[in-house]
């Protein structure tokens, strides 16, 4: 098992190098020389060249990439064109905010979707099932930022229960943004849970459990759910990147000072080091979460563990 984790961690390195290259390439073909956004309007060509050198913009794309990678491995993501601050430091300041938001989002999504999905599957084709599925379909069809706006209208402006933005109200200021991101994820996971449970519910081993005298409740919650969990965890892991993506929108709607907001602002200001750094770090985060998900598999399903340790 430890060897497997180590192997996966090592495999992460080339992936991250590729990601860095893709992002680096995309950001560096951007039209317009970033030097102009920094230099004063009456700078001479010599001054511009000097500035380029100072900003690390001289040389070909590849040389610049390798220079970037070299620094990145030392934890240096460069300096923001705009704020002149260390990108890594800025990112690390923002990250906890986004992680807080992502955690509550995941919690909300899991808390809503697994019970709903189980109920829908156990009472297949009943009114409860139909209602859950309609709800899930609406959740999937609703753009998250619009849901955020609606939540503000109802719960913030209308009822006054939660603040409409900012981060001063503690947990309260997290609730609406977390729902904004979590609704779509919850919808998707409800559907997955239902489908996965329906697969499991017809299995012979549940009949066997019932024949042993296991109560219906326990048959579903213990015997069925543990088997149905794999696809649910898969969706959960795959969707983590979309939670981070969703946070870009939610952070904008609710003025939440997270990583998403950082990226969008940086793009607006053509602050390439910040954008590149933030995207690379985000990919790393997603990859690590995916690795954790793969490890969780092993604890849920002994057959997968057997494969890993091989």
């Amino acid at each position, binding site marked *: 098992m430890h060897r497997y984790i180590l192997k996966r961690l090592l495999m992460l390195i080339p992936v991250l190098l590729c990601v860095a290259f893709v992002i680096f390439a995309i950001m560096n073909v951007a039209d317009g020389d970033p030097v102009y956004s920094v230099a004063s309007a009456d700078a001479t060509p010599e001054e511009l060249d000097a500035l380029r050198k100072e900003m690390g913009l001289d040389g070909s794309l590849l040389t610049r990439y390798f220079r970037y990678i070299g620094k990145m491995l030392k934890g240096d993501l460069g300096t923001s064109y705009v704020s002149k601050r260390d990108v890594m430091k800025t990112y690390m300041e923002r990250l906890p905010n986004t992680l807080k938001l992502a955690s509550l989002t995941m919690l909300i999504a899991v808390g809503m979707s697994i019970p709903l999905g189980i109920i829908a599957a156990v009472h297949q084709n009943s009114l409860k099932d139909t209602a859950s599925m309609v709800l899930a379909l609406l959740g999937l069809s609703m753009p998250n930022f619009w849901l955020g706006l609606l939540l503000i209208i109802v719960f913030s402006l209308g009822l006054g229960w939660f603040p409409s933005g900012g981060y001063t109200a503690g947990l309260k200021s997290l609730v609406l943004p977390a729902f904004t991101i979590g609704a779509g994820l919850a919808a998707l996971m409800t559907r997955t849970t239902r489908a996965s449970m329906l697969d499991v519910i017809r299995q012979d081993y549940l009949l*066997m459990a019932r*024949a*042993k*005298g*296991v109560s219906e409740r326990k048959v579903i919650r213990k015997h069925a759910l543990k088997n149905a969990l794999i696809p649910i965890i898969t969706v959960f892991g795959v969707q983590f990147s979309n939670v981070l993506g969703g946070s870009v929108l939610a952070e904008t709607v609710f003025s939440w000072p997270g990583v998403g907001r950082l990226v969008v602002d940086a793009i607006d200001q053509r602050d390439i080091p910040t954008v590149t750094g933030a995207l690379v770090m985000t990919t790393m985060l997603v990859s690590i979460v995916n690795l954790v998900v793969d490890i969780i598999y092993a604890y849920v399903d002994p057959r997968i563990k*057997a494969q890993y340790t091989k």
Partner: protein
Amino acid sequence: MSETEKHILDVKNLVVRYETEDGIVRAINGIDIQLGYKQTLGLVGETGAGKTTAALSILRLVPSPPGVVECDLLHIDGLDILSLPDHKMEEVRGKEVSMIFQDPMTVLNPVFTVGEQIAESLEIHEHLSHKDALQRAESMLELVGIPGSRANEYPHQFSGGMKQRVVIAIALACSPKLLIADEPTTALDVTIQAQVLELMSQLKDKYDTSMIMITHDLGIVAEVCDKVAVMYAGRIVEQGLLEDVFNHTLHPYTEGLFNSLPNVKNRTAMLKPIRGLMPDPTNLPSGCAFAPRCNYATEACLGEPPALRAVSDTHSVACAAYNTPGFHIEKGRDA
């Protein structure tokens, strides 16, 4: 002692149908089963005859919907099963009656260790602590011939025959009074089949368990059963002691089953398979369900399904041909 208490199992007029979108599947159409203590009943018939459904309805495990179970009487060890509330029924399953399922590959839960799966029924019925139950589970494994140390392993680490041993250990963990074995050896290799059957017989004798052996294999019936009931299209067409049914066969269908067996002594003899197929259970013929395939069928067979009639104290048959005095089937004549 009242009439029912002499039997571990007493079933009267059991009817099961599945109401699906495509019509009503008539799985069981009125069967009676009586089984004495320590006896073994062989329930014989082709795939689709309703054997498994019969077993499941005894445990009240027929999935509903689409299944609908009707029954005049269902007593296990004198206990009226039909009137039990669900939580009482859970106490009966695994404790009074256990079931061994057909396919050991699919009945063990892949994400729990075999020890946990055996221990579970002990925790439920004997109220043992998890630790004690796991210990007992290990000794159950030893009992079925698996080293107790393997209790921590998962089903995928066992072979088919080993899995069936685990299933048997689960079924016998709480020493049930009645064991229903649904084709326990069908999914196994022939060599393993014999071992598993031998094990079941031993354990059955050890614990004084009564048993219903569901099978399509007449060889197994001859080996382990005291009584035989032959099912066809959801009805019992012939039942009696092993000796009655095997040596004084009455029903044309039973005869057909015997004729389909290869004869080792006379290898040049042609196999005589029963012609045709089982009728579609959504659309059973109005008369005797076997009539379309029966060599002895007459007009009289097409009216109503024939009722079981007693031929002797122990032997009965459901066949309209016996209305004609002097009727006998070919096999009967040979015997």
